[in-house]
Structures are given as C-alpha cells and as structure tokens.
C-alpha cells in the first residue's frame, strides 16, 4: 500500500502539465464537438439540443464554402512558396552563396518571422493602401499603373493580397528550417554526385531533395494545417471583407460567435476545422510510419 502511494506520488511531477492540458486544451476541444449539436445565444444561455441542424446550416451557407475555398487557396499557395521555393532558397544559400554572405542573408530573410502578424498585417494594409501604398506607387513607377487597384478593398483581390503577405512573412522561416536539414546531409553525397558528373541542378534533385524528405513532409503538414487555422492576418487586414469575400473558417467562426451571437454554429465551424487538421496530422503519422517500415 505504502509502496503504491509512493509510486503514484511520483505523478506530482507530471500533474501540473497533465492537469493544465486536460482542463484548458482537451476538455474545451471535446466540449466544442458536443456544443456543435446545440444552439444558444446571449439571451438564452442554456444550450438546447438541435441535432445536426448546425451542420445543415453550414452546408447551405455560401460564406462557409467561400471560407473553405479561401483556406484551400491559402494552403496551395503556401505549399508552392513555403515548401517549394523555400527549399530552393535554402539550397541556394547553402550551395551557391559564399560563406561570408550566407549568414547575413539567412538572418535577413528570417526577420519577418520574428515580427507579430499584427504588425506585419497593419504594415501590409499600408503597403496595399491605394492612396500612399508602396505597391501601387511601384506599379506606377514601372509603367503598370493600370494594374494599381485597392487590393484589400476589392472582392476579387482581397484574399490573394492577404495570402501574398503571408508568403512574405514565412518563406524565410521555412528556408531556415530547410537549411538546418541540409546541413545534416553528409558532404560525401555531394562529392559523389560531382564525381559522377552531376551539375548543381542535378545534385539538387538527386541528393538534396531526397535527403531532406523528412523536413519536407513535416513542413507540408505544418503548412497545410496552418492554412486551415489562419486567423490573425485576415482579422487584421480585412476582418473577412469586403462582402465576406476574404472570410476564412477561423474568422467566420469568430464572427458567428461574437458578432452574430450564434455560438452553436460557430462551434460547428470549429469542429470542421478540427476534423480537417486532425485528418492531416493522422495522415502525417501514417506516412512516417510507413516510411519507417519500408526503411
């Protein structure tokens, strides 16, 4: 008995962490799924069970689908820039740029990632500003004045302008992660490729790409789930407007919960996000597992 008590007393070490996680992370996430089958608002604060009504409402809500589309667009563009281009950028920094410039360039490219998304968001809403923004002035300066528009004020461009800002902020961060992965590739592999007559482009595809595969998988997952969780930049730059054209799932749920006072519907949108991000995470585990078995 005394031994059992002493054994369980060792749990004191993990208790704070486990307790905080259960109360403030796990419980709310599970409760959110439950609440998605209920309906309540500020005037009637006791949730009433409504079955799948909220899900039906989502399926019939054009803004919900618009948000889903925007999140998907975010994911696709981010994959191209933050995985594809970032990998090329990292390889250039490692193999092409000389020792002296490598460090400073890496630091410079990384700086935006150290800044708050709010700061970057407000800064870019100034850059996109039709009256004094840098972007339109630059377009006018090179004779492309006819393309100068109110980037955040038009339904057709708002979400793309936000996505572009996000690439600006994150490409350096992803490149630095790739750089670290590339530094772990043994030099002999590159030397062997050179002896075999491979040029820099061939050895990028034959050595670098396969050797940093784990980092690539990881960044693909992080980028996709990040794209479905996006909230801050949209909130800061357009709050989903104009006319809900730049709404994403995160901002739509925020709006439903705290402006439209439709908490149950907001919980439903949150559950959709949970399912998407969870599926992606499960997919990653499955892929890494299978690879380990193969290897």
């Amino acid at each position, binding site marked *: 008995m005394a031994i059992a008590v002493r*054994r*369980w007393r*060792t*749990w*004191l*070490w*993990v208790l704070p*962490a*486990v307790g*905080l*996680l259960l*109360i*403030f*992370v*796990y*419980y*709310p*996430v599970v409760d*959110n799924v439950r*609440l998605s089958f209920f309906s309540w608002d500020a005037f009637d604060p006791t949730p009433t069970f409504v079955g799948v009504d909220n899900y039906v409402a989502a399926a019939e809500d054009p803004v919900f689908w618009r948000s889903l589309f925007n999140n998907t667009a975010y994911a696709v563009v981010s994959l191209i820039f933050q995985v594809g281009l970032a990998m090329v950028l990292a390889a*250039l920094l490692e193999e*092409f740029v000389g020792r002296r410039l490598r460090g400073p*360039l890496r630091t*410079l*490219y990384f*700086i935006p990632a150290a*800044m708050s*998304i*709010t*700061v970057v968001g*407000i*800064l*870019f809403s*100034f*850059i996109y500003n039709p009256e*004094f923004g840098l972007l339109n002035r630059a377009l006018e300066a090179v004779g492309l004045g006819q393309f100068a528009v109110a980037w955040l004020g038009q339904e057709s461009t708002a979400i793309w302008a936000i996505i572009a800002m996000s690439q*600006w902020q994150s490409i350096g961060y992803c490149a*630095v*992660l790739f750089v*670290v992965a590339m530094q772990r590739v043994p030099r002999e592999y590159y030397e062997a490729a050179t002896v075999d007559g491979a040029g820099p482009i061939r050895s990028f595809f034959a050595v670098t790409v396969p050797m940093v595969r*784990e*980092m690539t998988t*990881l960044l693909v997952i*992080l980028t996709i789930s990040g794209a479905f*969780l996006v*909230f*801050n930049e949209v*909130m800061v730059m357009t709050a989903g407007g104009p006319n809900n054209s730049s709404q994403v799932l*995160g901002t739509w*749920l*925020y709006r439903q*919960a*705290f402006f439209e006072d439709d908490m149950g519907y*907001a*919980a439903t949108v*949150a559950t959709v996000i*949970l399912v998407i*991000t*969870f599926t992606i*995470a499960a997919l990653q585990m499955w892929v890494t597992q299978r690879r380990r078995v193969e290897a």
Partner: protein
Amino acid sequence: MSQQTAVAVPVEAPVRPSAVKPSASPWATFGKVILRLLVWAGLAALAVAIFYPLLWMVLSGFKSNQEIFSEPWGLPGALRWENYRHAWDLGVVRYFTNSLIVTIGSIITVTLISAWAAYGLTRIQLPLSNAVVLLILGGLMLAPTVALIPLFRLLQFIGIYDTYWALIVLYTAFRLPFTVFLIRAYMIELPHEVDEAATIDGASHAQIFWSVILPMCRPILVSAALLQALFAWNEFVFALVFISDENLKTLPVGLVSMQSRLLTDWPVVFAGLTIAALPMVLLFLIGQRQFLRGLTEGVGK
C-alpha cells in the same frame, strides 16, 4: 611507338572533360555567367523585397502626415522623434507593459512546468508514463481556434475572463506540448550517472531537479524561453477574445485598436508598429543561435 599512344589515350580520356570543359565552349561559359547573375539578382530582389518594407515602416514613423502622401519613397524631412513619443503615450506604453507581464509570466510557468514534467518522464519510473507522453504529444495537434467557444464559457465560469491570468494560463497550457518535448529531448541525453551520484549522497528527486538537472538544462531552457517569448509577444486570437478591458490589452490587439482610433495619423501608427516589432527582432538577432536550436529541435523530433 604506336602501341604506346594507344595505351596513353584511354588513360588521358577521363581527365579531359573536366579539365577542358570550361574553355571548350564560350557559349556554355556565357550561359553559366548569365545563370549566376540571374540567381544573384533573384536573391538580391528577395532581400530588397523583405528589407525595404521594414525600412519604410521605420522611416515613415519619422515622417509628417503630409510627407507620407507626397513622398512615400523619400526620406523623412526631419527625425520626428515626437511621433514615437506620441505613439508611446497614446497607448503603446500600456500595451507594451501588458505584453511584458503576460510574456514573462507565461515564460516562467511554461518552462518550469515543462521541465518538471520532462524530469518526471525521463528520470523517474512513472506509472502510465507512455500514456502521459501520448497525451502531451496529442496536444500538439489541437489548435486554439478549435477550443475558442468552450474556453470562453470556461474562463467566465472560473472567473479569470478579462484578466492577465486568462492569457498566462492559456499561453502556458497550449505551449506545454511543444516545450515539454523540447526539454525532454535534451534531458534524455543527460548521463544518468549524475543523478545516481546525487542519490547516493542522499539527495531527493526535488533536490536533484533543482540543483543538478535544471542547471545542466540551461541551454535548452534559454531556447524554450525565447520561443515562448516570440509566441506570447505575438499571440493574437486569445488576446482578442479573452481580454475586453482596454487597459489590459496586449500589443497585437492594442495596435489594431490604436490603428482604428488614429484613423488618419499615419506616422504615429507607423511609429507604434516599429516599437512593437523591435523587442522580438532584437531578441532574435541577439539570441539567433538559441532560437534556431529550439526551432529545429522542436520541429525535428
């Protein structure tokens, strides 16, 4: 004679391509030079695209409202430090202090609680320790947005809604999985002989933790603290939803409300942005190596 040359040629052959190639075709060399120039141009363009907006932000903070419109590319006519003073007095000082409190508070709680848990998971035979690892690891997959609505109810129920504690507690809870794994990966590598020696000397686990293991973990604790600082200083969703008192707002949310209050006083907003960004950029420049170690350890494992 002829036989000798016949032998000599194949020996020479493999050496030739690499030795002769560069001067073989002037066009190939020309193409290579062009390619190099293009790559350099691309890298330089990216550097400018990243650096110029930042420079523009800092400089615009010194401009007058009129200069912002008439000379968006130009230098400010004078170093108007009063814009920065003005931004500071108009609310940045309060947001700054709030961010500082929440950031430092959550750094202390998250590193301590994580180190604690990591010790339990790596140095002690814990009942159900695999389940605990799984539970903590699983937390990595759960995002703040997904828990927003129940958390709103929960925090009001506990009575910490609209207080510093709401943010400190949430910044701790949601960053625990990452931080525990970061510190755990480091603790696993520490040799077990040190605790054994201390145990023989009669030290308890608590004593070993505080006076032996924790000091040895200093490098990774620094990384963990820096990454937590970056997270807490810049966090937006929780700060937006769970703080409504203007006096308690942190920088990311405060800046947005300041921007809407100062609709047309652009230079002051630019100055506010610069002040808000500066601490983390400086911290990153100073502690770059620790930052990157934390990122790659945490991401890679």
